[in-house]
């Protein structure tokens, strides 16, 4: 990458009037039109990997001053980086890949974005139109492969229209329920001549996401909430995506209703507030699972009631009247029947319900009960002298050392759960993880995307040794781009979450879950040009964290943790949330 294109050399003030500062050469080809459409959308960063069929688009970027391309090591990394960029900024992240293997390498990242409703747009090269269908070199039916994991996908067929296709895809990724979109770009279309200047990005006229919920249902729902004795608010990722955290907080404080979040909803409500019960589900807190199981009214906002949250449906909040607000009508009564469906935008609907509240629920006893559960089921862990370092301690110490707006990314497994349980999240868009798809390898590329999205904030990636091994090549990108991020590998020399399940449900038959040999990650980091650290003892933790944070560039801390440590509480898959296990013998 040339000097000019490093993210740090990028001017930050791009908010000038459209077209003025971002002057660009006139459109001559389909590829120019693609670039023009991205600029119209306000895009600044692209994450991708070059290749034959996408070369015309890259060529159109060659002399461009406004768009910065970050070359990733692998297209999966490009998709995750774009995804994290989308989570942190709220605007679609852009990833690019060539046809065939480039496009198929994006698939995991798109599926991940689809499950978590993250705004991402993918631009894929395609073989020239006349070769499509002939099994040409690096031809894959990209639309066919990605359709099930994208919100919309478009096959560009005309140089005059391709720019508008990109604008539409960007707008669709951004509006309504966010999600990934894709435009497949045959080489003849991007190379083809056109002078068509694409317009501002806009969704099709037929796309009209709902805003206000039905007023009669709102009134009925408010009535139920006001008269409930054991109400909870369940805040999902939609609260963050819908920029409704402020409304959520105001509503909860006003009516003193305890708030539980889903995992993607983490950060929508401050976990250090009395009303916060943190998050519920398979490894959620005991108090959140007690409250969600025993509530009599639930105001669920922007959640799709994933099975990792609900456990067995039969025993999920079985006494509760469910008020379900979602911008996607298809989520209503998909998994849990909604007694009061509120289809609309989270921020607007919360204000509608607030305005309709006929009074406040009498919650004193219930709030006291919730506080009691907090003392009965503390998230305490022991640090016995004769056992190796506990991962929870490392997470807590890192949290203590860093500012509140620090961004945390993770891989998938036990370390992800500890990062979730023992870090106190207070702000939206600080928790960046792979929830619905559960993609190992998400953490490092996500940290790269997050740091580029928020260069002034600290970014830490808690990774597992297994997860880190899946995408560790992206360290090369972090070094090249001089990104000041810290990767903390909670190294248990195993794919620990699988090992935990084998011990709990497969009589300890540890098939393919322990690594008989594992690279030394601090040395691996040094080989990449990053700083490597190693922690084995409690008394090294704080000091090493300070050193890694002080280093201006990417660093990796290889933390040798107790390989026997397991994640609790735990609700067995399909189990009853209220019967969460606190230790293995309760499973």
């Amino acid at each position, binding site marked *: 990458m040339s000097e000019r294109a490093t993210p740090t050399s990028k001017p930050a003030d791009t908010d000038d009037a459209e077209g003025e500062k971002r002057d660009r050469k006139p459109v001559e080809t389909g590829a120019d039109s693609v670039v023009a459409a991205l600029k119209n959308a306000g895009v600044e960063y692209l994450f991708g990997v070059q290749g034959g069929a996408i070369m015309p688009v890259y060529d159109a970027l060659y002399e461009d001053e406004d768009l910065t391309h970050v070359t990733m090591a692998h297209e999966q990394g490009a998709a995750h980086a774009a995804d994290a960029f989308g989570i942190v900024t709220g605007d679609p992240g852009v990833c690019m890949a060539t046809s065939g293997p480039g496009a198929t390498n994006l698939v995991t990242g798109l599926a991940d974005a689809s499950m978590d409703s993250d705004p991402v747009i993918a631009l894929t090269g395609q073989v020239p139109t006349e070769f499509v269908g002939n099994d040409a070199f690096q031809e894959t039916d990209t639309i066919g492969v990605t359709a099930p994991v994208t919100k919309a996908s478009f096959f560009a067929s005309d140089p005059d229209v391709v720019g508008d296709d990109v604008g539409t895809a960007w707008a669709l990724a951004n509006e309504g329920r966010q999600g990934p979109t894709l435009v497949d770009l045959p080489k003849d279309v991007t190379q083809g001549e056109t002078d068509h200047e694409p317009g501002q990005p806009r969704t099709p006229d037929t796309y009209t996401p709902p805003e206000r919920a039905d007023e009669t249902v709102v009134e009925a729902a408010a009535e139920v909430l006001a008269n409930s004795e054991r109400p909870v608010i369940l805040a999902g990722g939609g609260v963050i995506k819908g920029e409704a955290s402020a409304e959520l907080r105001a509503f909860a404080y006003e009516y003193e209703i305890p708030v539980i979040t889903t995992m993607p909803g983490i950060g929508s409500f401050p976990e250090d507030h009395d009303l916060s019960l943190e998050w519920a589900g398979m490894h959620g807190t005991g108090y959140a699972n007690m409250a969600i199981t*025993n509530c009599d009214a639930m105001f669920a906002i922007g959640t799709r009631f994933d099975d990792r949250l609900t456990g067995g449906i039969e025993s999920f909040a079985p006494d509760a009247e469910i008020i379900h607000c979602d911008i996607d009508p298809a989520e209503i009564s998909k998994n849990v029947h909604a007694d009061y469906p509120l289809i609309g935008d989270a921020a607007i609907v919360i204000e509608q319900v607030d305005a309709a509240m006929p009074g406040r629920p009498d919650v004193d006893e219930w709030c006291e009960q919730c506080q009691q559960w907090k003392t009965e089921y503390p998230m305490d862990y022991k640090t016995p002298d004769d056992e190796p370092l506990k991962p929870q301690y490392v997470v807590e110490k890192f949290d203590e050392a860093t500012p509140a707006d620090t961004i945390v990314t993770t891989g998938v497994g036990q370390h992800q759960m500890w990062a979730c349980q023992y870090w106190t999240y207070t702000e939206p868009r600080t928790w960046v993880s792979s929830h619905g798809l559960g993609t190992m390898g998400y953490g490092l590329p996500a940290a790269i995307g997050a740091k580029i999205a928020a260069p002034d904030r600290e970014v830490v990636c808690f990774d597992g040794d297994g997860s880190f091994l899946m995408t560790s090549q992206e360290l090369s990108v972090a070094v090249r781009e001089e990104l000041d991020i810290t990767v903390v590998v909670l190294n248990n020399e195993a794919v620990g979450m699988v090992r935990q399940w084998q011990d709990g449900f497969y009589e300890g038959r540890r098939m393919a879950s322990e690594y008989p040999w594992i690279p030394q990650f601090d040395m691996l980091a040094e080989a990449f040009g990053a700083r490597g650290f190693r922690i084995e003892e409690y008394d090294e933790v704080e000091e090493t964290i300070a050193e890694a944070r002080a280093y201006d560039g990417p660093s990796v801390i290889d933390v040798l943790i107790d390989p026997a440590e397991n994640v609790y509480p735990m609700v067995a898959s399909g189990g009853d949330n209220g019967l969460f296990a606190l230790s293995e013998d309760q499973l």
Partner: protein
Amino acid sequence: MSGGLEGPAPEERMRPEGRRNSQGIRIDPEVEAEPNTRQAVLSAYVEHRPGVLAEISGLFSRRQFNIESLTVGPTVDENRARMTIVVEEPEPGIEQAKKQLEKLISVISVRELEPDAVQRELVLVKVNGEEPDKVQAITEMYDGQTLDAGPRTITVQLTGDEQKIDDALDAYRQFGIREIARTGYAALTRGEQTTAKENVRTAD
């Protein structure tokens, strides 16, 4: 194994009284009733471009909705096509199928047709031709048409609703049916009402 937290054991905890069924609906635990399965005719107004059929059939298979039949054809607007899809599902499934269809960007609107909607299916039947007069009598009885008659086989065309076609096929069976091609339903609402309008997403 290490790890583990303090707190009252599962059997010592406060427990709710209720229960939900497998559809996530709160029920009286004493009387567990599963919802009825029924047939629904969905009419979808969609963009007329390559890939839309694959997208829609992919959606149905991915979400395990049961398709009885699916027909596609052009409409008066050359950029739009109509799909008529007959699904058989328990009640919440039909609602879900409709909403998931509506969610596709290439789907403009979806409507479930009332049972009284105009619904027709076309079927071609090739039967043994040893008894041409008797075959002709049945064809006339069901308002069919003979399209091809040879020394050994007769091919007839029938149109109608499912019941009529099933009855006709039963009647032909005595001669020996060699082959059948059925189109599945095409359907429109009755009266002046349009079946699916542009710019209307009947989301809720």
